C-alpha cells in the first residue's frame, strides 16, 4: 500500500481524572490514503477530537497515556519524540481548529503568525516568508491580502479568521490536513465557502484530509470515506455511499435518522436516539451502544470487532452482531433509514 499515508492501529488514549481513568479513544484503527477525505463523525465525547489531536501529539500531558501506533512514513506519531513531532507538525501534518475566534494569537499580526510557521520549518528570509504569507492569504480568498497581512485577528470576521487558519495550515504544503470541526463555529453560508476552499485545496495539492465533525451535512458534501465513532471506538467505517445508503450499525442508523432533509417530508418531531452516551469513565461491557439500542440481544455483551460482516462491500467494516439480513430489515423505519425507539 504505497498510497497509504497514515496507518493508525489500535490507538488508545486514556486520561487519569478524579473519577478514574477515562478512556477517550479505545482501539481506533484506520488508514488514510493519499488525496482522500476521511470524515470522522460522532457526537460530543465520542473521542473524535482526541484522536485528531493525538496524531499531532497535542493531547500529550502528564496524566494522559497512549498505546497503539500511528505510522506516518517511518515515524510512529504516538511514540515519536517531541522534536520529531515538532518537525512534522505544521510542515507535513497541519491542523485547522474548531474555533477560529480563539485559535489565533490575539496580539500578533496574522502575517507574523503565518510567517513564523514557515520560518519554523524552512530556511527562508523574513521577506520571503512574508511574500509567501500574502500569496497564501490570496489563495484562501482574503481580499486585499497585501494590506490585510498586518491586521490583527480581532479585525477579521469569524469566516475570515478561519480562512487565515486554513492559510496557516497550508503554508508548508502538508500532506495531511486535519480539520477539527472547521465549520462548527461559522454560519451556514460561510460553512459552504470554507468547505469549497478545503475541497479546492485538496485538488490543488493532493493532500489527504481528516475531517472531524458531527455534521452529516458537511460529511455528505465533502467526504470520500467515513468513520463513525461512538464512545471511543469506531463502530462503522466505509465509503460515503456505503455509510449513507447501506449503513450496518444501529448507531449510524440513528444518526442518519435524526437529520433533517429538504428532500423529504418534515416529520412532526425530529427523531433522536433515546438515552445519553455513556460516561467514558464507566462504559458498559461489550457493545457500548447496547443500552441505547432497541435491537440489543444476547451477543451484545461481548465486544464486536470492527470487521467486514458480509452486509456490505469489501472495506465496509462495522461492530454489530446482528445478521446482515436482519440489519437491512431492522433499519427501515417508515420507508427510510432510522432507529426505532427502544422497546
Amino acid at each position, binding site marked *: 500500500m504505497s498510497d497509504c499515508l497514515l496507518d493508525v492501529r489500535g490507538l488508545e488514549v486514556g486520561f487519569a481524572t478524579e473519577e478514574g481513568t477515562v478512556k477517550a479513544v479505545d482501539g481506533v484503527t484506520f488508514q488514510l490514503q493519499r488525496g482522500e477525505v476521511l470524515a470522522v463523525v460522532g457526537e460530543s465525547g465520542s473521542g473524535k477530537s482526541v484522536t485528531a489531536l493525538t496524531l499531532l501529539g*497535542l493531547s500529550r500531558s502528564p496524566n494522559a497515556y497512549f498505546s497503539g501506533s500511528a505510522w506516518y512514513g517511518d515515524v510512529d506519531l504516538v511514540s515519536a519524540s517531541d522534536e520529531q513531532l515538532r518537525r512534522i507538525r505544521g*510542515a507535513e501534518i497541519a491542523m485547522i481548529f474548531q*474555533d477560529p475566534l480563539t485559535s489565533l494569537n*490575539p*496580539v*500578533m499580526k496574522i502575517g507574523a503568525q503565518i510567517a513564523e510557521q514557515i520560518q*519554523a520549518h524552512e530556511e527562508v528570509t523574513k521577506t520571503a516568508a512574508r511574500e509567501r504569507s500574502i500569496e497564501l492569504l490570496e489563495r484562501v480568498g482574503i481580499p486585499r491580502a497585501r494590506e490585510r497581512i498586518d491586521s490583527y485577528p*480581532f479585525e477579521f470576521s469569524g469566516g475570515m479568521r478561519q480562512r487565515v487558519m486554513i492559510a*496557516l495550515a497550508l503554508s508548508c504544503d502538508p500532506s495531511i490536513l486535519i480539520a477539527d470541526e472547521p465549520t462548527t463555529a461559522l454560519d451556514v453560508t460561510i460553512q459552504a465557502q470554507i468547505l469549497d476552499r478545503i475541497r479546492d485545496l485538496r485538488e490543488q495539492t493532493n493532500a489527504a484530509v481528516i475531517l472531524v465533525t458531527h455534521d452529516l451535512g458537511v460529511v455528505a458534501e465533502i467526504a470520500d470515506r467515513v468513520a463513525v465513532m461512538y464512545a471511543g471506538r469506531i463502530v462503522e467505517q466505509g465509503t460515503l455511499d456505503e455509510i449513507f445508503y447501506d449503513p450496518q450499525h444501529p448507531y449510524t442508523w440513528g444518526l442518519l435518522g435524526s437529520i433533517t432533509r429538504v428532500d423529504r417530508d418534515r416529520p412532526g418531531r425530529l427523531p433522536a436516539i433515546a438515552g445519553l452516551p455513556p460516561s467514558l469513565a464507566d462504559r458498559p461491557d461489550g457493545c457500548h451502544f447496547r443500552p441505547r439500542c432497541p435491537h440489543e440481544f444476547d451477543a451484545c455483551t461481548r465486544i464486536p470487532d470492527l470487521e467486514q460482516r458480509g452486509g456490505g462491500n469489501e472495506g465496509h467494516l462495522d461492530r454489530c452482531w446482528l445478521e446482515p439480513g436482519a440489519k437491512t430489515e431492522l433499519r427501515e423505519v417508515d420507508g427510510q433509514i432510522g432507529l426505532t425507539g427502544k422497546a
Partner: protein
Amino acid sequence: MLRFALRRLVSMIFVLFAISVLTFVIFTVIPGGDPAVRLAGRNADNAQIASIRKDFGFDKPAYVQYGRLMEKVFTGELESYSTGRLNVFDEIVKGIPRTLSLAIGAAIMWMLFAVALGLFTAMRAGRASDRVLTVLALVGVSMPVFWVGALMNYYLGFRAGLFPNGGYVPLTEDPIQWLYHLILPWTALSLLFIGVYSRILRSNILDTINDDYVRTARAKGLSERRVLVKHVLRNSMIPIVTLWGLDFGAVLGGGAILTETVFDLQGVGQFAAESIESLDQPPVIAITIFGAFFIVLLNAIVDIVYAALDPRIRLT
C-alpha cells in the same frame, strides 16, 4: 496608535491640574489655623509669618493663593523656612538621581526575578519546587521593607561588612561603588514585588497555556521555547506590565521613603520623611505635587505601552 498616545497625554494634563488644586485645598484652604503659621514652621517669629502671609497672598482670594503657590512650586522659589530658607526645589533636584537610581534599579530587579520565578514555577506547577517557591514568595510578600532593610543593613552591612552600611555614591562618580551601595536597597525593596509579581505571572501563564492559540502555536511546529516566549509569555505579561508601571510610579511617589531612610540614601523620599518629622510644610507640599505628577505620568506611559502590547485596546 499616535492619536491614542496624544489623547492620553492630553487627558493627563487635566488630571495634573486636579491634583494641584486638591493639594492646594488640603494644605491651605482647609481650616485648622493660619496657613502662614503652618508654612513658617516651629521657630518662626511674627515678622516672618507676616512676610509669608503677604508672599503667598493669604490675605487675598483663594485663586490668587493657588496661583502664588503653584508659581513658587514650579519656578523653584519655594523655601523651607524652618531649616533656614533652604531651597526646596534644589533639595528635590539633589534627591532625584538617588531616588531614581533606587526605583529604576529595583523595578528592573523585581521584574527580572519575577519573570524568571513566575515562568519556572508555572512550568513546574504542582511539583515540590513550585511549592517551596510559592511559600518563599509568600514570605517575601509578608516581610515589611523597613524590617528586611534593617536586618540586611545590620547583618550584611554592619556585622558581616559585605556591603556598605548605607549611603550613596553617584553613578557618574563611580559606577561600581554606585552599584555596590544600591544592591541591598534594591533587594529590600524588590522582595515584596517579586513575590506578588511572580504569583500573578504564574497563574496568568497557567491560564494562557491552555488557550486555543497556544495549541495552534504548537500545531504549527514551533519550538517549545518560541511557543513559551512569543505566545504564552507575551500574553501573560500584559497585566504585569500594567502593574509594573503603576508600582514604579508609586515607589517614586512615596514608596521609596522607607527604603531610603533605612539605607540613608538621602533621596527625595528621605527628604520627605525628614520634613514630615520636623513639621516642615513647604517641602511636603512640593514633594506631594511632584510625586503625584510622577504617578500620573507613569500611568499615562503604562496605558500607551499597554496599547502597544495589546492592539485591541487602541480602538477604545
